[in-house]
């Protein structure tokens, strides 16, 4: 897989987050991966919601994640089921389970679609896609892959 490099289809939708979710994307611009954290009970929830599902508190802060995790699942798009995908398949999309628990949707920058596997150890990289928009992507890390993530 040496030399392969993810090229994001340039016409994929850009994030247009709700006001509630905006801090997640603001933090990405500062190269920080954050997740909504309940200030009352400490539960993490992603995507963010108005109320904590564990204790019903509505007071939150944003907790910085280690950026480490592993591939929980993945799909590979072969048919251009959206105009933005035309000429850009196969495209692998992964669900990364962060070490802290939450799962986030992303892409792997250094693993070609046919080599993606569940359990791969990954770590976050930040990629500016257009002016003012940074996305959290992941690279295969040096840590040992787990056979079964939970």
């Amino acid at each position, binding site marked *: 897989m040496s030399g392969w490099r993810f090229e994001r*289809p340039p016409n*994929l*939708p*850009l*994030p*247009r*987050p*709700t006001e509630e*979710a905006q801090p*997640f*994307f603001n933090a990405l611009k500062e190269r920080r991966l954050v997740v909504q954290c309940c200030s009352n009970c400490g539960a993490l929830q*992603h*995507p963010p919601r108005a109320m904590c599902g564990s204790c019903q508190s509505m007071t939150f802060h944003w907790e910085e994640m280690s950026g480490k995790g592993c591939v*929980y*699942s*993945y*799909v*590979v*798009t*072969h*048919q251009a*089921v*959206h*105009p*933005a*995908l035309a000429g850009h398949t*196969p*495209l692998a*999309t992964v*669900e990364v389970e962060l070490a802290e628990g939450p799962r*986030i*949707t*992303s*892409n792997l920058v250094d693993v070609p679609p046919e080599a993606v596997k*569940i359990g791969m150890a990954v770590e976050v990289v930040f990629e500016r*896609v257009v002016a003012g928009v940074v*996305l959290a992507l992941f690279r295969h890390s040096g840590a040992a892959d787990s056979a*079964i993530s939970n």
Partner: protein
Amino acid sequence: MSFSNAVAIVGVGETDYSRASGRTELALSLQAIRAALDDAGIEPREVDGLMKWWVDTSTEAEVAANLGIPDLAWWGEVNQAGNVGAPLVAHAAAAIHAGLANVVVIYRGVNGRSGRRYGRGDVTGQGGRGVGAFTEPHGLLTPQHGLAMVARRRMHDTGIASRHFGMQAVAQRRHANRNPRATFYGRTLSLEEHQASRLIVDPFHLFDCCLETDGGGALVLASADRARELGKPLVLIRAAAQSGPGVGSPAVRGAKRLFDMAGIGRGDVDVIQIYDHFGPFVLFALEDYGFVDDAAPLVEEGGTDFDSGRLPVNTSGGHLSEAYLQGINHLIEATRQVRGESTAQVRDVRFSFCDTGIGTGSVILERGES
């Protein structure tokens, strides 16, 4: 006091299924409703309740005006996705049992191929808005993307494989090959053809994905007492359940409610219909509803075939091979199995099970004494 066996499905009907209906979605719905009312032997003027798929473009008011309903007493929708068929049956049965309506029509009419195509990300996507902000920028754009993600993980966890999905697709195609209404009536499918078919969103091959269909379907519900006056085979709603967000699989939670209400066991069910927007979810549902612990050996032994299988599944061909009408065709087929009118009829059906969407809703129908 539940509505178990107090309400019946008294009529079913559908239009032809095509890729280009040349009719409006309203016209498709009306045509299907008229067929279902004719089947029931009930005049449109007797209808006083209407329920539709919340995504349906025709309003209850338009349908009522077109049918010449003199007094629409009750109507409603269930909002989620395409998977609301059994929940609509549950709501309608509850309304009839509560005396809010006497004859309720449930309908779905859609130009799913020539109109809005649900498999297209530019149709069903959110343009990066809402929770789509977290998924669409990375290429998760359509219903099949999210479901493929679930399927891939389940394959990893349980060892079920694409060839098992293929075996179920082949079983359903055999059923469709007996059903003149089915889109794939005249086209066979082998396991090799399934495995060789192109990948759409890996792990889904082409023949794991539902059809895109123009068409309409309708059900007519009334009290069991009214049903007995109609002189047709009696199809009672033994149980119905809805299951939404919560902890764990909606099917697992919904199944408990459904079988508790029915007062029967999994082994009492004679024939099964399961919502198959994507074929792998048929096998997942068989496990989640508790029919089998592991669906792989079941399909390896041909266990879902209508004539030789121990658990016949999707006997009209389902969404994969009959038509994609968001579960109303499954409810129609579940009813026909009880009446003995299926083109892939299972012998001596008493209990007919139907799921209308990854556990979100399910019904058990029972053959009653007329």
